[in-house]
Every structure is written in C-alpha cells, then in structure tokens.
C-alpha cells in the first residue's frame, strides 16, 4: 500500500519538515515539505532511510554484562530492561532521594517529555548539551534584551548585510536559513565573514577577515567604536530603547579600528570600509550573535557585543533585521499543553548549582558539565543515576576520560538513543529508540514571524525491536508508580490532549503537515516596543542591571588571547555539511562521502615541520595522541589547526566509524570544567596541541 506522510526530519537538530512516501512499510521517497522548503533537503536528510536499514544500530535493549565500556552486552526484552532500570532507580531514590537522579535530552522542541519525567521523579536535575553549544549566546542575549537567543528571528532574506563571526552558516546548515542567505546574496546583499579559516560560507563573502584565533571580541568592539565615532548608529532607537549607551561609548574609546587591526592581524582600512558599508546598509543588517559559541573565555562578551551592534543599528523589529519570535498568544491563540504542566515543580536545589551558587545562569537545562562535579564530590549532594536521551556527552564535552571517572560514582547509567553513542557504550543499559522515520513525536510550537504547530508522524513501523520515546518513558513511569503524570495510553490520546486548548485538531495538519497561527508575518509596532524587552528596566540594557547585581561587568576589558608555545597550535573545530557532529559518522551513505576528518594546517607552518599534504600527523595533548591526515591550506591562521568535530569514534560495533579520523574533544585534556564564568559555555577552543609528522607514514617500501 502506498501512502504519503507529513513528518519531521531527525538526522540533525534542525528538524526540517518533510514529506515521506511509503510503500509496503519501506520509504520510497522523502523530500523537504514543499510548503516551507520547496522540496529542499540536505545530504543528511536523504540518508535517513540508510540509518533505518543500518544493522549497526542497537536492535533491541541491551544490558551490560562486563565492566563499563568493555562492550559485553546481553540482549534482553523491553520488560526486562525497563524492570531493571526501574528497580535501580527505586534503590537510588530510597538511599539518596530522587534528586540523585539526573536526565539529559537533545535540546529543541521535544525536551518536554524528559523534563516532565525528571520532575515526576521529584528531581530538579534536567539538563541538555547546551553548555557545549549556545549557552554563552543565550545568556548574552538575556543580559541585553531580557530574551533568550531564540527570542528573535533573523530576517536574513530581506537584509542588505549579514555579518557572521565564525558562524559557518552554510556548512552547519539549516536549509530554510541557507536559502534565505542565498536569496539575500542573489538580491545583492552583502556578506561579511570573520573566522580563523576560510569556509564554505566565507567563499560567498563580500568581506572576509581571517582573524587571529580568539580575537572576535576585539573586532566587535572596534566596530562599536567606529560606528559610534562616525555617529552611524540609530540615535533615536538607542535613545528610546536602550540604557547605558554613554558608558559603552566611554568603554570602547580605546578600541579603534587601528587597535583591532593589530590585535586581529587584519587591515584597519578594511575595517573602515566595512563600517562605511554597515552605516549605509542600516537598519537592514543582521549581526549574527553566534550559534555554537562555547569557544573562548570571552565568547559571552563577544556575543554580547554582536547583539549590541544589532541594537545600535536599530534593526529590531524591522524587515531585514531581528524580529521578535512570536508565540501563539501574539496571534490571539493558545499554545499546546505540555507534560511538564502535569508534573510537580521540583523544590530541591539543582545539583549543578545553577540558580543557586550560579545565579547568573538560567535554570532551564542548567549546565551539564557541572553535574560531573557533583558526581565526583557528592556536593551539594550525590548524583547516582543518569539517563541521557539522544545526547552523547562523551562526543560533546571535553575529556571523556575525566567524564568516565566522574560517572564511575553512579549506580545507574542509561542511554536512550537511536544509534550507539560513546556514552551508551559506557552505560549500563542501552534502550534503542526508534529512528525518526519509525516514531511519532509530541506536538511542538515553533515560534516565529508566523508561529506554527509542528509534529512528527511515524512514516513506517519500527524495523527492529525499538520503541518511541513516549512508550519508553511511560513504561518507566508506570513501573515507578508515576502513571498519573503520563496518563495517555497512545500518541493519539496525547496529541488530542495537547491540542485541546489550541482549538486545532489533527485534521488541520493534513493539508500541509503543520498548522499556522497567522496568515501573514506578525510584527509589533516598532514605535511601541516598550515592555517587549524583559530586562529589569524594560529596555535593551547595554549596561545590565542583573550582571551588575551578580558582580560581573557588562563589558569586560579586552584581554589578548595567549599565543600557542612554539611547535603548538590552538585546536579549533567545526562542521561539515555532510555530517551532524558524531550522530551520522557511521551512516553508510554519509560515511561514504566523508569517512574521516583531516587536520587543516597553515601551509607555511606545515612546511616548517616537513609536513606535506596527505601526510599522517600526530596531534598531541597531555597523554593523548591522535593520528590524522594533514590538509594544507593557505587560508587558516598560522596559530590554529582545525578539524571537523564528531570523528575518532571508538565503538567496535560501528565498523565504518571505528577509529576513523580524530576526536577533538578527547584532545581537550583537563578542559571539562573550563567555562566562561559569565556565559556558562565551555571554552572549547582553549586547548593547545603539539603537531608533528607521524612515524606511521611510510618511510620506505619494505614489503613486496
């Protein structure tokens, strides 16, 4: 039987809307939803059916029988696995209380379920990966606008100028956003790209600045300085909606283009030229405040400066600028119900200290890496059980060895994932979740200019003994006597309950696969933005009252980043459009296109070490040495070496990915707790590595 199913891609966390054609429980075609993406999908999206068919993903629940990480697994039934976990959880709760259990899930629209389960247990300790991703950007945005980083939509399509600091927007690709960028360029818009290397994004740039690693903040400050000096900012907007402009002007006094040029290793003339362009293009400019900006120890301030440039340009709530993300309420509607509303709000303090020791961080998912501290020290109280749902902390946070040592204090480690994760391999139980094509997901609200309800419909029945997340959580909840918080027996019941207050029904999704709250983009009156900024003053706080209260400066005096010692390089990492970090490395079709990563080295630096293109090189940090193929390029800063994140996996059952390429996070020795104290993001680009030509290169032909 043939059918067409509206669904949502799950190959990466962008979650593109898709349409899937199915015949006899097999996917015969899938494409981006024509109503939003006009069919477009990336390589990963098309490789979804290859993930479904891959036998190198867990096929049934597994329980560890050898030592942790030894890889001796026993295949068990779902009932057995869920009973086993429930028993262990009960023991932990009896001995240490429910707060000794933490859970983490993939960020995005589907956090509700895992968060609700954590709260139902009675634990406040819900987390996700964001301390290795967008926390700095999020907190910087809150300190300025009173709104998180998802509080604004970037209207790139209508912009005249897009400014990206290390935001490799065309590689870390979100198809809808990428098309906005290409449309902007087609219309003659300008792209300014700042990075330590040239990228797929930078090759499309009008202006390209290859800066010294760790100097983004310097360049952003200089832009503020020059724009203020030239009086090129939107004085009316600044006067009306911001506080602290004079202090900022005073603060940036010494940060001229000439100063930044020296600091960043670029030309002052080019900065002046950029400033002139920016002033002319105002207000249709988007300064991207960064996405994954857990990089340097001033990334919080760099992001704050970029967002401040948005405010100075007065590009808020204008076409081609930053638009407030609208919710159901902005359209006179109501959002869907959340499971979190059913479960009791936890009263215990968080074990990561967020909201308590660390007042500057928003509670939400807290900061995952700080839980390792709690595990290791049993302070403020012990963490004894951990459940990670489609989150692989070993692939995500620095120094997996240090993570393992902390985890050894836990009595229960559970991994729920569609594929084997490095974390799962070290776990006590692996529960295989059905892939996105084989599972239904909860209905979620996507805020935007036209807010909409989205959902993922199961396209095919599971091909292995796997389950969808709601069944898994419900199975655990039932065993723990928490049924009342998960009262729905089927996804249909759950969806109907979620939709009830919205006034929409499942039938409304049939036409396009989603439901919109508005026909046209909803814009606020730009002359009445008072109260829209959720800061204490109700304005954009260039000088933040909250930061002041917590004892942090709104603007940190710039400190020049350390130069790597001789023979060493700053290790930086990034994305390829072919892989979604570590999730896809073992996917047959994506692995075929990109089976391993390389180490980018500046050609002249490589020459000094006698390294030629294609040579194997050793990359050394502490007691970790990795071997990787060298890629020589003129277009990377000589202080940096670069690699694509996600490789160097060590799961024997993933034969394609096993030991292919190099893992950057394993080289980040001793960096697990090195975080930006104000933003909470980890400093993932603060590791220096030694590089040398490897002895594994063939010296002579010795064999026949």
């Amino acid at each position, binding site marked *: 039987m043939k059918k067409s199913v509206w669904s949502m891609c799950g190959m990466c966390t962008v979650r593109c809307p898709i349409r899937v054609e199915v015949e006899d429980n097999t996917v015969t075609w899938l494409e981006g939803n024509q109503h939003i993406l006009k069919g477009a999908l990336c390589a990963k999206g*098309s490789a979804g059916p290859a993930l479904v068919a891959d036998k190198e993903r867990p096929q049934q629940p597994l329980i560890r029988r050898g030592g942790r990480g030894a890889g001796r697994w026993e295949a068990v039934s779902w009932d057995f696995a869920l009973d086993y976990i429930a028993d262990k959880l009960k023991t932990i709760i009896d001995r240490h209380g429910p707060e000794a259990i933490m859970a983490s899930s993939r960020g995005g629209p589907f956090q509700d379920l895992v968060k609700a389960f954590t709260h139902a247990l009675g634990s406040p300790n819900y987390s996700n990966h964001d301390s290795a991703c967008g926390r700095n950007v999020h907190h910087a945005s809150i300190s300025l606008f009173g709104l998180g980083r998802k509080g604004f939509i970037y209207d790139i399509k209508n912009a005249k100028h897009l400014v990206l600091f290390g935001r490799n927007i*065309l590689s870390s690709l979100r198809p809808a956003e990428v098309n906005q960028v290409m449309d902007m360029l087609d219309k003659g818009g300008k792209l300014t790209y700042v990075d330590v290397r040239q990228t797929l994004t930078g090759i499309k740039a009008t202006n390209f600045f290859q800066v010294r690693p760790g100097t983004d903040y310097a360049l952003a400050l200089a832009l503020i300085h020059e724009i203020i000096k030239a009086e090129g900012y939107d004085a009316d907007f600044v006067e009306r909606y911001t506080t602290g402009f004079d202090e900022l002007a005073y603060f940036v006094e010494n940060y001229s283009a000439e100063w930044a040029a020296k600091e960043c290793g670029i030309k002052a003339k080019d900065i002046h030229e950029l400033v002139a362009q920016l002033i002319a293009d105002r207000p249709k400019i988007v300064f991207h405040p960064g996405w994954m900006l857990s990089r340097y120890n001033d990334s919080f301030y760099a992001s704050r400066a970029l967002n401040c440039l948005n405010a100075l340009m007065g590009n808020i709530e204008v076409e081609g600028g930053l638009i407030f993300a609208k919710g159901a309420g902005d359209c006179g509607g109501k959002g869907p119900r959340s499971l979190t509303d059913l479960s009791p709000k936890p009263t215990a303090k968080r074990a990561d200290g967020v909201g308590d020791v660390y007042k500057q961080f928003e509670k939400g998912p807290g900061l995952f890496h700080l839980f390792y501290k709690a595990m290791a020290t049993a302070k403020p109280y012990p963490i004894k059980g951990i459940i990670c749902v489609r989150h692989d902390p070993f692939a995500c946070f620095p120094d997996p060895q240090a993570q393992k040592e902390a985890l050894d204090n836990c009595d229960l480690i559970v991994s729920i994932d569609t594929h084997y994760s490095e974390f799962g391999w070290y776990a006590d139980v692996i529960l295989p979740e059905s892939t996105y094509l084989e599972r239904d997901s909860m209905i979620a609200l996507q805020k935007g200019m036209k807010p909409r309800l989205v959902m993922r419909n199961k396209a095919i029945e599971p091909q292995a003994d796997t389950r969808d997340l709601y069944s898994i959580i419900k199975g655990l909840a039932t065993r723990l006597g928490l049924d009342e918080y998960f009262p729905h027996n089927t996804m249909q019941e759950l969806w109907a309950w979620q939709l009830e207050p919205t006034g929409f029904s499942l039938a409304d999704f049939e036409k396009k696969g989603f439901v919109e709250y508005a026909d046209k983009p909803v814009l606020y009156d730009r002359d009445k933005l008072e109260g829209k900024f959720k800061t204490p003053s109700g304005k954009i706080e260039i000088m933040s009252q909250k930061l002041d209260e917590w004892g942090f400066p709104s603007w940190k005096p710039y400190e020049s980043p350390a130069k790597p010692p001789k023979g060493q390089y700053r290790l930086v990492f990034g994305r390829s459009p072919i892989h979604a970090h570590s999730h896809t490395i073992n996917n047959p079709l994506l692995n075929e296109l990109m089976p391993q990563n390389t180490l980018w080295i500046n050609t002249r630096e490589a020459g000094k070490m006698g390294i030629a293109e294609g040579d194997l090189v050793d990359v050394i940090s502490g007691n970790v040495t990795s071997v990787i193929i060298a890629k020589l390029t003129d277009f990377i800063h000589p202080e940096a070496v670069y690699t694509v994140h996600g490789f160097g996996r060590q799961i024997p059952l993933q034969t394609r990915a096993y030991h292919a390429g190099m893992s950057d996070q394993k080289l980040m020795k001793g960096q697990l707790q090195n975080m930006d104290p104000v933003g909470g993001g980890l400093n993932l680009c603060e590791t220096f590595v030694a590089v040398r030509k490897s002895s594994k290169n063939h010296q002579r032909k010795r064999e026949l």
Partner: protein
Amino acid sequence: MNTYTLYLNNKRCIGCHGCVVHCKANKGLPVGPILCEISHERLKSVRGVPKTEFKFRSCYHCEDPFCVTICPTGAMKKREDGIVYVEAAECIGCMACAGACPWGIPQHNPDTNKAVKCDYCMDRLDAGLQPACVTKCTTHALKLVTMKEI
C-alpha cells in the same frame, strides 16, 4: 538531439553534496556507485576573499554514446529525447560500458551486479516530476534545463 541538461547555478551552490545522496537514495544504491559529483578547484584569493566555484557532473548523455555501441546485450540505450539509460533486465553487469566511456561514468551496483548511471530520473520525468537531485537540491541551485535548437 538531447532534450535535457542539468545546470548548476554555482552562485547558489554551497558544496553540501546533497545531490549525491538525493540521487543515491532515490535509486536505492548501496555504498559504491556514485552517479553525480560536486567538485571544486583549490581556493584562490579574489580581492582579498579566498574563493572557489563548484562544478556538477553526472552523465553527459553523449550524442553518439560509446557505452551504447559497446554494450553486448543492448541494455544501454538512448531514448528519443536523448537520455542514455540502462535497461536493468537486459544488463549482465560486464561493465564494458564503463570501459568505453571516456569518463568512466557507468557504475557497478554491487547489490544487483548491474551497471547503473544517471538517467535524469526518467521515471520521475515521465511522471511529470523533476530529477531527485533537482527536486531536493538544498539551495535550489540545480535545474533541469530543456534545450532548444537555435
């Protein structure tokens, strides 16, 4: 006379290699055969910006294709609209076609032990659709162009 060609707007192409996988997924190909390719030259600095452009290549669908002439079973055919394709039922997997092609374009499918190549997704074309690589191109950079005699 060839009716179609695939045109890549390299201003819009971002080198994501989506087309390669769209093609493989549509044809249900295993690891091995790749029917279209995205390539680029090394970066060169143009007015301070290191640049390169992407090229797309599938099959040229030659006017007078060697692969068709050499095929011992007549499985390699050229349609009236110019599309060169493999009639799978007739193919014995000898891969003489790949040897005859100056670019080695026909590929061996290890699952079926037959030759496989770009046929502009003619089943989709005949159904009024576009080739997989065009329909799903991430940035809508690929277009199927109908050629006209000038």
